[in-house]
């Protein structure tokens, strides 16, 4: 994939060099000008969000230089931390409390100014709630058709993304001068946060006021690994019958495995688990080493969010449930017996 990227980048470079009169410039500066990526990094309360570091990895796959972008109340001090991320050449930082809450209304003009000033050819952010809300707004302001949830990068203008809840995989070529991508977190591992030595520069701050006001947030508190990046996930569905049973059976099993907890839409809709735990087309995408689920039938929309897991195990009493078609290990049985037994046996090992 990398060689394809380079190859195609070089080809563009040659084509441009032949067709235009940039002869006074060296090939190196061409390349730098032709391919440069801005990777938007997320932060919360002055801490870098590791989930957003996949944007740097994706930027490196594009070839060319990669600059990081960070903004918020403690923009400059996080920029020092971000400068150590491997693969970044430069970090643009904007320190202004107005950007702390990630509101798209002032972030979009902020990014547009910085993208224009830096002459970036690519802008990458992770397909998180923040990226999903922000990047299309930026795309519209730049008159660009954005690409969502990119799973792989074929070349500087050709990308692969899932459509129809992952039932089809689309390879698509963009003709826009600037490519805006949100990348799937599970497809691009986070870049290393140590060993880099990027320079830090102050970004442009257009200081556009946001018409929306942030009021409050309520985040589900958990000491468990974060769902989207956990290496193991234990997930429960409608088969658990009630919130009490969900809370009685699922957390102990997750603890025994050191796993994050997930849920199907049915379980979330019935109030067994918090919305933020939903795995699927409209919830989170996960691709852990182990996805162990109980009482989940395996509807298309659920499979969309977990079928890239390394190993899928399921417990379901219906031997014909579609989940068995994707599971590496399937156990037909009553989850009210099997889950406690599994928890006990895992604990005693």
């Amino acid at each position: 994939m990398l060689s394809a990227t380079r190859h195609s980048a070089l080809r563009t470079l040659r084509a441009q060099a032949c067709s235009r009169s940039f002869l006074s410039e060296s090939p190196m500066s061409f390349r730098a000008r032709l391919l440069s990526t801005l990777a938007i990094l997320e932060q919360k309360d002055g801490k870098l969000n590791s989930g957003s570091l996949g944007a740097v990895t994706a930027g490196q796959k594009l070839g060319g230089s990669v600059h990081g972008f960070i903004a918020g109340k403690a923009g400059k001090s996080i920029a020092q931390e971000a400068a150590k991320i491997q693969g970044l050449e430069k970090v643009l930082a904007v320190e202004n409390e107005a950007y702390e809450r990630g509101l798209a209304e002032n972030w979009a003009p902020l990014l547009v100014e910085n993208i224009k000033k830096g002459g970036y050819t690519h802008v990458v952010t992770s397909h998180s709630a923040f990226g999903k809300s922000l990047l299309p707004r930026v795309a519209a302001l730049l008159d660009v058709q954005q690409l969502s949830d990119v799973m792989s990068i074929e070349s500087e203008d050709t990308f692969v993304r899932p459509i129809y809840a992952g039932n089809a995989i689309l390879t698509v070529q963009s003709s826009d001068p600037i490519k805006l991508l949100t990348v799937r977190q599970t497809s691009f591992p986070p870049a290393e946060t140590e060993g880099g030595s990027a320079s830090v520069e102050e970004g442009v701050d257009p200081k556009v006021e946001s018409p929306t006001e942030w009021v409050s947030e309520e985040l589900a508190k958990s000491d468990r690994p974060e769902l989207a990046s956990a290496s193991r996930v234990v997930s429960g569905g409608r088969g658990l019958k009630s919130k009490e049973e969900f809370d009685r059976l699922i957390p102990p099993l997750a603890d025994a495995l050191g796993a994050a907890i997930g849920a199907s839409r049915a379980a979330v809709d019935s109030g067994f688990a918090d919305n933020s735990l939903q795995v699927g087309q409209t919830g989170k995408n996960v691709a852990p080493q182990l996805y162990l689920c109980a009482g989940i039938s395996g509807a298309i929309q659920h499979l969309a969010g977990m079928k890239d897991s390394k190993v899928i195990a399921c417990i379901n009493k219906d031997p014909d449930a579609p989940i068995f078609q994707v599971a590496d290990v399937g156990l037909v049985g009553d989850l009210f017996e099997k889950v406690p037994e599994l928890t006990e046996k895992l604990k005693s090992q």
Partner: protein
Amino acid sequence: MSSKLRILVPVKRVIDYAVKPRVKSDRTGVETANVKHSLNPFDELSIEEAVRLRERKLAVDDILAVSAGPAKCADTLRTAMAMGADRSIHVDVPEDKPLEPLGVAKLLKAIAEKEQSNLIFVGKQAIDDDAGQTGQMLAGLLNWPQATQASKVEIDGEEVTVTKEVDGGVETLKARLPMIITTDLRLNEPRYASLPNIMKAKKKKLEKKTLADYGVDGKARLKTVKVEEPPARQGGGKVEDVDGMISKLKELGAI
């Protein structure tokens, strides 16, 4: 601006959510002929929310449903009207040249300005292209405030408070009309259109328009290189008991 709500609800005709899409053998796309289509589930939530605002006795002046696509989108709009939309506009777009989200956003901008809309409910994503862009793009083009993935909407005069779903929980935002809200699953439970309402919807106004009427060119920026089936997973078969499961998981290196 008056505080009367003029609500615009874009709706999309998509392959029904329960149908497993099949990739065409020539890898140019997904088979859509003779496949059941319906209203995009998130757009149902949009219509429902608009209708509920009226039922909550807010001053809802107009609920306009809009769809861009081939002739069959008229059915989708009739469904929206049967659920409670007052009227609709069908913008004819040939089936083989569908609009990209940016094109849809440009079209909706023109419609919103012409119809003097002050509140737009857009589904958070269409379940076919899974892009999740149109609402935010439209908000950018109109330079209106946006609230994405809404699970609760409260309107008091011109002030709108929206609870939105974010990674790890919910967040509440406040803004003033005009505004764009994208709808998430938890927002409401869409109603079924009753038979009398389906009959009444046939009499509601459905205007036919073209992209040229709104001065929008539908030129695509993206070219489909290919569409493929995802790599198939091989089910590893079943085990007899919990011990079997543990030993298989060990064998696979998962625990």
